[in-house]
Structures are given as structure tokens and as C-alpha cells.
């Protein structure tokens, strides 16, 4: 077996990787594959685990990998706080979640974004560490692969010491047996990820990096109601779930709308804002718009709309969403939204959220 040495380790002697993602993009599987890569291909001592919770799509997920020399015992079981490699599978998390926490000059950040590397560095104010960018979603779509495979290729390249062949070998062993038909596409996705990742080169001098949300009120043992009782009815309304969308939004074309109410009957996220109004000269309930803070982009409404008043659109084409109407039941001035994934403490460990043969989430649009 070829000898690999870790280019850098922390004060305890470990090389550490953290992946930041939302459920459904396959970061958990990537973490497992990197763990296996370390143990089986690079001959390190290796461990891997994910942040755990209930199994939901669209919620923030972290995966951790820790490597050290084979002879050294792996004694730390806690999450990775100061990663040498930080893979960010979903750029929407930056600024709303503390995904950049613990980055140092040693950190290689691999970011999935359609922006060019230097633009991304500026937009996300990433001034520490080395930033590597690629449009993993587009690459994945072109190759009929998945974001996680493309990201693994990019991570290998950015690491400077992981050969593409080694990650591909793990891919063969992990996915090849389970989904043989998809193997070639995934290997190709990895290669394209490896080839297309670009390092930011411009010199940066930004303000300190954003570090997640700052709550002004936090329940603890002194001020929380006893028994875990929650005295704030409807408080999930302050969640901004935009980050759980995977690229698509329903677009509302009011001129085609007949106010039939079918969209409101199929929307799991209670997005449609009907109110009293006039349609064709008659008083009645009319659709005033969509609450995009809570829309998760499932496009159920598009599928049931009988008149084409709701259509699927690429979110990136609509930086300002037309007919965006926040929840109308809210008391005035009550709200400041907190961007969050579908569930703030959730992740995924379910095999069904990994590369799926039939229904990749990005293929939602017909």
C-alpha cells in the first residue's frame, strides 16, 4: 500500500474534516466515504460520524472525519471544531448558521456555489483559509451524478494529497455494489468535481467572518418555563426555511389564477395567503401571494394548479420573488425571521437520503 502522510495536524495530532450541508445532499454519505477512504485507502487511523437527529430532508447536517497516523489511538469523540478541510455543500447556510466557525489560515474551504471563487470570497466575506469553489449542482446535473460525489472530487483536489483514484475506488466500493447502474455517472461526477474546482486568488481584507445567529433571548434554567413547556404559540413562524429549497420555487402568475383553493389544499407549508377580495366582480376569497419564508420548494402546488397559475422556476433567476407575501395572520411588527433548515436540530442518517437511483431531488422539475 502506498504511504500517505498527513500534511498538517492539530495540537493533539489529528487531521480533521467537517462537512456542512442540508439533509438530502448526501453529506452524511460523503463523511462515511471519507472515513473509509482514510482507513482503507490512505491507511490512517480514521473515524467518522454525523450530527444526529430525526430523519428529514432540507435540514442542516454536519459530518465529521478525524484522521491520524495508523499507530496512534483515536481518542477524541467530540465534533470537529477547527477543521483542516471544511466542505460546504450548501452556500445558503453561510451567515445564518455558524458553518465557518473554527476556520483558520490552515483551513481549506471547499464551497459549492455558482459564483466564481473570488466573487464568492467577497460575497461571503471569507478572508481566512484557502477558498476553493465549484458549481457542484451544475456539474452534478451535467454528469447525472450527485452533489456529494462532485464535492468529494473537489475535496480530494483541494486537499493536495488525496488522489482522485483513491476516492473513486471508495465510490466503486460503496455505491458500485448498491447502485451499479449509477456508478459511471458518479465516477464522472467526481472527476469533474476534481477538475473544475477553482482556488480564490485575490487578496482579501474583510471584516471578521460571519458566525451564525445571535439570539437576543435564550431560555435556560433560570427563565425557561418548567417541564419544557412552550409558551410561545406558533413560534415556528419565525423560521425562514428558504435554505431547505433545492433550487426551485413555485412562481405565481395571478392573471391565470381562478382562486380555486387547490394550492392551499396541497401545500404542506401553509404558504398561500388567501384573503377577502374580488374576483370577476364577485366578492370572495382570493390568492394574494406566497409566503416564501416558509416555502420549501416541493412544487406540490404547481402539480395541482389547474390553470398554470403556479409554475416551477429556478430560484436563482428570481432574486426578488414576485408576489411574495409574508404570513397575513401575524401580529404587526412581531417578527424577525431566523433562517434555518427544515428542523434546527435535525440531520439524516437514512440510506434513502443518499444517491438515489430514481428521484434525485434536483430532478423535481419535470
Amino acid at each position: 500500500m502506498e504511504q500517505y502522510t498527513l500534511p498538517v495536524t492539530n495540537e493533539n495530532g489529528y487531521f480533521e474534516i467537517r462537512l456542512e450541508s442540508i439533509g438530502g445532499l448526501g453529506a452524511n454519505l460523503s463523511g462515511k466515504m471519507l472515513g473509509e477512504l482514510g482507513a482503507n485507502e490512505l491507511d490512517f487511523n480514521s473515524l467518522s460520524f454525523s450530527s444526529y437527529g430525526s430523519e428529514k430532508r432540507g435540514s442542516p447536517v454536519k459530518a465529521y472525519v478525524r484522521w491520524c497516523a495508523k499507530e496512534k489511538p483515536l481518542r477524541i469523540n467530540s465534533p470537529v471544531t477547527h477543521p483542516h478541510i471544511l466542505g460546504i455543500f450548501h452556500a445558503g447556510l453561510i451567515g445564518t448558521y455558524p458553518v465557518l466557525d473554527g476556520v483558520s489560515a490552515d483551513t481549506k474551504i471547499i464551497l459549492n456555489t455558482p459564483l466564481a471563487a473570488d466573487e464568492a470570497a467577497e460575497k461571503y466575506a471569507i478572508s481566512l483559509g484557502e477558498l476553493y469553489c465549484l458549481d457542484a449542482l451544475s456539474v452534478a446535473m451535467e454528469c447525472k451524478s450527485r452533489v456529494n460525489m462532485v464535492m468529494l472530487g473537489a475535496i480530494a483536489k483541494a486537499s493536495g494529497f488525496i488522489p482522485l483514484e483513491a476516492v473513486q475506488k471508495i465510490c466503486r466500493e460503496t455505491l458500485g455494489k448498491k447502485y451499479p447502474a449509477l456508478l459511471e455517472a458518479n465516477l464522472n461526477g467526481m472527476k469533474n468535481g476534481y477538475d473544475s474546482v477553482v482556488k480564490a486568488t485575490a487578496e482579501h481584507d474583510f471584516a471578521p467572518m460571519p458566525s451564525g445567529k445571535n439570539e437576543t433571548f435564550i431560555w435556560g434554567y433560570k427563565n425557561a418555563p418548567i417541564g419544557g413547556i412552550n409558551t410561545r404559540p406558533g413560534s415556528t413562524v419565525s423560521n425562514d426555511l428558504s435554505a431547505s429549497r433545492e433550487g426551485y420555487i413555485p412562481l405565481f402568475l395571478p392573471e391565470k389564477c381562478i382562486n380555486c383553493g387547490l394550492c392551499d389544499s396541497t401545500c404542506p407549508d401553509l404558504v398561500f395567503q388567501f384573503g377577502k377580495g374580488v374576483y370577476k366582480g364577485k366578492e370572495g376569497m382570493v390568492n394574494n401571494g406566497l409566503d416564501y419564508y416558509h416555502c420549501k420548494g416541493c412544487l406540490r402546488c404547481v402539480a395541482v394548479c389547474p390553470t398554470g397559475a403556479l409554475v416551477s422556476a429556478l430560484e436563482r433567476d428570481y432574486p426578488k420573488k414576485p408576489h411574495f407575501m409574508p404570513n397575513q395572520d401575524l401580529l404587526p411588527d412581531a417578527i424577525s425571521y431566523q433562517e434555518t433548515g427544515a428542523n434546527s436540530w435535525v440531520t439524516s442518517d437514512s440510506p434513502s437520503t443518499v444517491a438515489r437511483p430514481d428521484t434525485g431531488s434536483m430532478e423535481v422539475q419535470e
Partner: protein
Amino acid sequence: MLEQKMFYDSGNELAAYAAKQINYHVMGYYPITPSTQIAENLDLMGAKGEHDIKLIAAEGEHSAAGICYGASAGGGRVFNATSANGLMYALEQFPVQSGTRMPMVMNVACRTISGPLCIKGDHSDIMYLLNTGWIILFADEPQMVYDMNLLGLKLAEAVNLPVAIAFDGFFTSHQKRRCLVFANDADVQKYIGPKMASDNQNISSLAKDSATGENCFYSVLDLAHPISVGSYMNEPDVINNRYQMHLAMEEARKKLPGLFEEYESISGRLLHLCSGYCHEDAEILLFILGSSYHTAMEAVDLLRKEGIKAGVITLYVLRPFPAEELRGLCKNAQVIIAADRQDSYGAGGGNMSLELKAALQSCNQEQCRRKKVLTRIYGLGGRDFFVEDAVSMLKEGLSENAKEFDYYGVTEGVDGKKQPQYFKPLTKEDTTLGLTTCIFDEKTKKMNVTGGNLRELTAMPKRIAPGHGACPGCGIFVNLNLLLKGIEGNVVFLFHTGCGMVVSTGYPKTAFRVPYVHNLFQNGPATLSGLVEVFHQRQKRGEYPQGEITFIMVSGDGGMDIGMGSAIGTALRGHRMIIFEYDNGGYMNTGYQLSYSTPKGAKSSTSHVGKAQYGKTFFHKDTPEIMSATHIPYIATVSESNPTDFIKKAAKAGAYAKEFGTVYVKALSACPLNWNDKPNLERSVIGGAVDCCYFPLYEIENGITTLSYDPEKAGKKIPVTEWFGMMGRTKHLVKEEYKEVTESIQSEIDRRFARLKARAESPLL
């Protein structure tokens, strides 16, 4: 040494692999996070034909323990895995198993006990096992989970006591590591030896019980030597039975060192009763269980560099408790920080620090009894334990003023700007819009319902706020929304554990704009019964204003499995409430294990598809028919593909529940994540289930069945395979090789539908 091979696996995977190598006769289990993967992995290996273990998915942990008991009584090797409230639900059975001396192995992936519900790891569950007469081993890393699963069974069978193998949920159960397993299953089986049973024809001579001279490998299946298991026993006998258990536990204590030695000779790995790191000359020690032990070693190294003589010790055998050996590890320490990952509230420590104190106190040396033990309750609910935490605990212990007992890692909260009120509380007037009306016809004994216009119903205020964390396209909130459109006036909810609950009440937020209670899913209907009756009682006594409330219990199909008994009891008593089931055909909240409502043939994480298995092996549960036998006034099935019908039935359900008694309504609910289909198309997938008569729409009103929609008459009937083809979980069944399976499903569906139709056509039925 036996031949071994390297794996990169987690604790759960290794527990499953050990069980596969042992090839247990039976595993009775009920999936509960974080132990679930053990059964899942065994099912996966079973589907490939890699073992012969009969895996039995019980309808709850209590039954799982019963399955294990019966199988063990019949001379079988028996395996189980559980966590947290699952362990608590089965707790009653554990002394039965140990008291009647059934050897078996149960893995416990430790997790905190609800409520409030939390799925993460701590040791509050395993400590409940301390007084059950089970041997308890505690592994601190995946490798040890494997080793203890082999050695533990051997120990169990050597002393006829059940053995629990505990390890940290998630930290050890899910973390993958390099580890070694025996290369050949035959070697493992040879090491364990054949299962002794007095009726086993393949074993010529059986060991004799030292006390009675009889062989003690009893089997209920030994027809030549009939035995009675489970005597009715009073004083003076019970105490003798318990003393036998005590002796068996002492026998286990004697046998352990020899078993460790033997296991080392085949594996090269020496297990211990307890162990330490830099403890020999340590002045301050940290006593800590599980995965934290390793993390603490790093802290000890750091402190040693600062010149602090720190050390760390841990325990691998909780029962029998190795007091003497543990004392030996503490020899030179002046101060011991006992870090407990659970609390025995009011006792001044978690169980391990209490037992450490007792162990030191029972020493005959004065110096031993003078050691200072400081308890720190830490890491509850899976709170991470970093090297810095271990450093800080040890450093604090050096201080003269360190408290004897404290919690480590609590936060007092931040009183920032006042939290806003997001919504006005919904009043009866807000939600009484006359969009549906129900009038009971005394003559026909039917509720006449009007309204149900979808456009008008957009005016119904939402009792559930947006911002919940369900997956994109999830059917649960679609169904709840449709149900609530049909319910006018005040509503109070009770939710069972499940996706609907987890995604709506993630602390510190809640999606509910109206009052809500959660209870664990064995017990929702009973809990709501109590709430309903106190409402009526308090109204009667003038303590609560007059007026009506619609009480709605919401459960998944999982809650209707484990909670079936509670639901039937409630229905038979007739409390005025709605039991609403969203049936997504699986335990989706925990990663899609099969439920009894999963379609036959569907793949799930406990019904894999492979050469030896085609998916789930039995038909979907017909819950409305079970409920119909309770003769409650109203039962209905509803589907989002027929929204107006859904809302009208919801209105009727509300009317019946307010006036007449218990109502049961069931909706088929889409789960794009686990059905493996496209979120946007779920309404048509649900429609497919209705059109193939898998999910017929009907109602039973005061005993009279009415079909709401007949796909045959509407000319829309499709074969079940067409519906199966719409979902990734059943797509494989469309293949020719599964024709026999799909034909059996089709004929069962047709039989059930024909029966339903006949009943709808006959006024008597």
C-alpha cells in the same frame, strides 16, 4: 489466535455483525433510535441470505421482550436491541427474564429518557437496569461492542442470566472506526459453543447444575421432561429464588476473568472489569463511563504537561459491580471527580458516583474512606463532551472550594428583548365561519353535512403555524390542514411521538397556535381520554366556562401499532374525541422501518430486498376494520386526492366527537423521503392508492358502511402494480420475478374491497 479481518464500522454495525456470526435463533425487537441500525443491518444481511436469524418486528418493546422470553424458554439463542423509553417500556419484563433465568443478549445504545423527548445519548436509560438482575457490560468503543457481544453471550449461558451490552448512543453506536472481527463465522460459533438445551438431540451430554445435580438447560419444548416456567411463588420461596440470582451474579463475577483471558487468547484483545489511564500516581482522578473516557485521556495528557498529576478511570462491568478492582484504581487519588451522564434526582449523584462512594466506604482502610468524591452531572441529552470539558472538570476538582455535587454545562438563559407574540390566540368566533355544517338526522341515524368548498375554506384560520420542519412535500401537514378546514370552533390537540410531533415542536419553538400535548405513542388515546374527562368534570363543577372543544389526537401508523391497545380501550370507553391517523406506511421518523401498515412487498430498512427476501412479508394492517369492531359512532378513511370528501368527513368527525363518542379517521399520508418518489407528485400517488383499492374511501356511521368512492364504477380502477410503480419503495415488485407476491397483494386488496362493498350494499352488515 484466530484469523481476523479489518472492518470500518460503527458500534451498531458491529453488534449486528456479531449477532450474524453467532446466528441467533430469534431476534425480537422494536426499532428505537439510536439502536435501530442493529436490526436494520441484520435484516439487510438476512435479505442477502447471510444468516438464519428469525427477525421479529414486534409492535412495541414490551412485546419484543416477550418474544425474546418465549424464544429463550424454548431453548433458543435470543437477541434484542433497544434504547431509552423502549427499555423503559420493556422494563417490567427484564426481572421476569432474569428471575426465571433465561440467558439472552440485549444491546442498549444508551439514550436519554423522555420527556421532554430527546433522542440523543446519555445514561439515564441503562441505569434503570441496575436492579433487574441482568449482567451489564459497558463498551467504550465500537471494537468493544463487538467483543462484548461474543463474550457476553458466553457469560449469559454460563450462569443462566441475561446480559445487556451497553454503549453510548450515537457516539459509539454510530461512529465508525477501524476494528477487527473474526474472519470465519465458524470460529465464532466454535468459541461460543452449541446452545445447550435438554431437548437438543445433537448434544449427548449436558452439564449438571451444581446444586441440584440436574441439568439446568431447561426447555419448554422438551416434551420428554415437561417443565413449568413461571411458578406462582410466595414467601418463603421468593427470597430463595432471589438468593439464587445473587449467587448466579457472584458466579458471573468469578467467571469473568477467565472469560477475558480466553477471549484474549483468540483475539489478542484483553477486556477488563475496569481500567485506568495515568491513574497509578494520580492525585486527582476523573471517573467516567463510555466514549468520554477516551476524550478524557487527551485531557490527562494536557494536564500532565502542566505538571498536574491527573488520571482517568472507567468501568466496563456495571453488574456485577467490581468494587474491589475499582478501589484498586483509586489508590493514590485524593480527589475523584465522578462524572455521571444521568442523575438519581435527590440522591446527591448519578448511580455510578453513588456506587463509587459506596465502594470506597466499604473499604477497610481509613485512607480509602477519606477520599473526596465530587459528582458532576454532565452530557445529558447528548451534550457533547470536549477535551476542554474534561480539563475544566479536573482543574475545578483541584480547588479547595469545589462543590460536592453540581451540574456541568447548564446555562441560565439570556433575558434579552422581550419575545414577541406572533399571533392572537384563535377564538371560537375566528374559527366558526359556517363553512361546513352538520345536522344529525334521527331517522336515518346519519349526520347530514353541507359545505366543503375549497375556495371558501381558504378562509379557515390555520391552527398550525408555518415554519415547521417537515420534509418538502410531506403529507402530514397537508392532511392536518384538510382535517382542520372541516373542524369549526375550538380545538385541542394531542400528538403521538412521530414525524408530525418532532418537526412541529422542536424546542424552543412550537408550530401550534392552539393548545397541544404530546405523549409517547403507547399512550396518546389514554392521555387524551383523561384530558377530555377533566374538561367535562371541570365544566360540571363550574370551574371552567361552558362551551365546546374538539379534542383531536394525531398519530402516525407507528403510534397505531404500539398504541393500538390504548386506542381500543379509549374507543370502547367512548370518550368524545377524534383519533386521527396519518398513515405513511412506516416508522418514518426513525428512518423508515416497517410498520404493520407498510404494504406487503415494500422495502424498508427492516424489510430489505435481496435474494432471500422480497420486502415486507405480511399484508398491510386494516386499522379501520379493527376500530370498527369497537362499534364507535363514526369511522372514516380520507385522502387528499379527494379533498372535498376529506373535509366533509372531517366536519362529521368533529360533530360526532363533540356529541356522541370516539371517532376514528385515517388518512393515507405521503412520505416523499421514504416512499422514494417526487414530492410534487404526491397527490397523484395518493390518488393511485385510492384507485387501486389499496386505500378505499368509506365511512362507517353508527354501524352502517357507505362507500364514498368506487374506482370500478368511476372507470378508474388500476392494478396495484401501477401504484407500486409510482414509488421507489415498491417499484421492484413490478418485475416479473415478484409476480407471485403482487398477485397475492392484488387478491387480498380485491377481497377486502369486495367485502367492503358487500357491507355497503347490505343494510344489515
